[in-house]
């Protein structure tokens, strides 16, 4: 608890009010389908439910979470559900940019090393003259107006630099964006999922179809 910011990287917490006059048992009955998914184990003692997930299925609505604690709290304004859940997916996504930055560094290092060995060779080698090799072109292609083929001969290409580190930087940036998007999106999705479950809307019976569609709709906002 000393580093609350640190903790927020891969923990999602929040609270959702219970439906009016809903008992604790009723509330947990409503939530129960979420914890009967494959790979999920759960344990309830009194007001508290703890769960663990392993090998989550792709379409499991709680697939990003690995474990968590839910608790129903009674308050003067009405009872509410409080939750705190951990997600390794979020943590790894948060760390992924570091991995890609490391790839970029590795790439640069290898490039430097290659350059050094190429420079050592260049001294011995005479510069080839730049020449262009003539390539044949079919009459049909000529008639249709395709550009004439051409290709640079040996020596025309400047010393090869190897692959550039740019893709690694791009993916580092992409994962920063993915992390931020996911941290915000999944926070909202799980809150709305719990609320819908507790209030009995958009559940498996298919009542209130609009809401169920709204859910997939916001799920797709991730783009």
């Amino acid at each position, binding site marked *: 608890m000393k580093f609350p910011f640190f903790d927020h990287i891969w923990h999602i917490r929040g609270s959702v009010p219970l439906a009016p006059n809903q008992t604790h048992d009723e509330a947990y009955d409503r939530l129960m389908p979420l914890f009967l998914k494959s790979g999920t184990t759960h344990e309830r003692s009194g007001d508290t439910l703890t769960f663990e997930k392993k090998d989550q299925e*792709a379409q499991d609505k709680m697939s990003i979470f690995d474990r968590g604690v839910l608790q129903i709290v009674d308050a003067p304004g009405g009872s509410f559900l409080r939750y705190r859940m951990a997600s390794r997916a979020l943590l790894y996504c948060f760390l992924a940019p570091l991995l890609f930055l490391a790839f970029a560094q590795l790439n640069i290092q290898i490039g430097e090393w290659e350059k050094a060995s190429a420079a050592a060779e260049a001294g011995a080698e005479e510069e080839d003259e730049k020449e262009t090799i003539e390539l044949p072109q079919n009459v049909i292609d000529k008639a249709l107006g395709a550009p004439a083929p051409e290709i640079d001969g040996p020596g025309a290409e400047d010393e090869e630099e190897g692959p550039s580190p740019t893709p*690694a930087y791009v993916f580092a940036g992409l994962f920063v964006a993915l992390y931020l998007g996911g941290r915000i999106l999944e926070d909202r999705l799980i809150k709305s999922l719990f609320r819908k479950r507790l209030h009995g809307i958009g559940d498996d019976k298919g009542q209130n179809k609009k809401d169920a569609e709204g859910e997939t709709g916001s799920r797709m906002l991730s783009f």
Partner: protein
Amino acid sequence: MNGTRVGNRIIGADAPVTVGWENIPKVEGGPVKRFVFTWFQPTMLVALVLFWYYAPNSIATASTAIALGIAFKVLLLGLEWVNPRHDSWRLTWKELATDLFYVGIGYTLVNMIESYIGAGAIIGWVQDSFAWEKFAWFMAMPLLLQAVLISFIFDFGQYWMHRGMHNWYPLWLTHAPHHYITQLNINKGAVGNPIELFLIGLGIGGFFDFMPRAFLLAGTLGLTVSIYQHINVRFNTPRWWRFTFNTTEHHSVHHSQDYEASRSNYSGTWIIIDRMFGTCIDGEAELLGMEGGRPMSIRETMTFPFTEGWKSIKARLGRGEPPPEPAAVPAE
């Protein structure tokens, strides 16, 4: 479960597979939507072929090809959103992030390693005028014919490599992780053990900036045909297209949980190669994966060939326990 007899095989005995085009649902919606999802694929193919046919030499480079490939994928992600084939294949944040991780590994680590193994040799070969003279007869043919031949010959090699992966255990170990995906999305082609990428020659490390145009055109066939293998979009694919080319329907059969069904549709672009060798099954499947759809983590995907390979070596030497009989065992 009763399967469907196709030739002398029973398809769909272990898991549901829809066999036959007549049993596959059509795109639902207004005339505009139906028109778009009927003609999207051929239109894109023709447009990109025309682009590569006429683009000036300064633009017709591999970097343009890579940029176009990325832009096209983003467009297809949009289509997945608008007209998904199965709701059970919906892209979630976690699936997207996981897929992009594999894509990222392909563009960085695999690319780096490949470029130090192969690219130098290929560049040397391309720049060697002697090599060009040898192939002058090939380059005197019409450009589109060259492109079709290159694409077909490359795919012919891929067909046998892929079929080999499904029949020879050491190769299968590298390919198996790809078969643990439980849904198809546009980036799922990148999901799998990286060793497979070397074997199947799909890496981009071999690219350099003066590709002969016939290769760029052949690559475009790959981009505008085989990319649909892993797409969650319902198309009304024209008959001639699905007779000639691989489709998401074909490839979903290949990814089916049904063992017999997965031993079909091996080609990447030209499904007629499968028709030639009797391995084509026209149909589709929704329930995908191995071992009843067990999810495979990124870590296991990376280590699977080694851990499984070690297990079977130990078993052969008669020590340790025999490997359990998972669905991860190919035919023989």
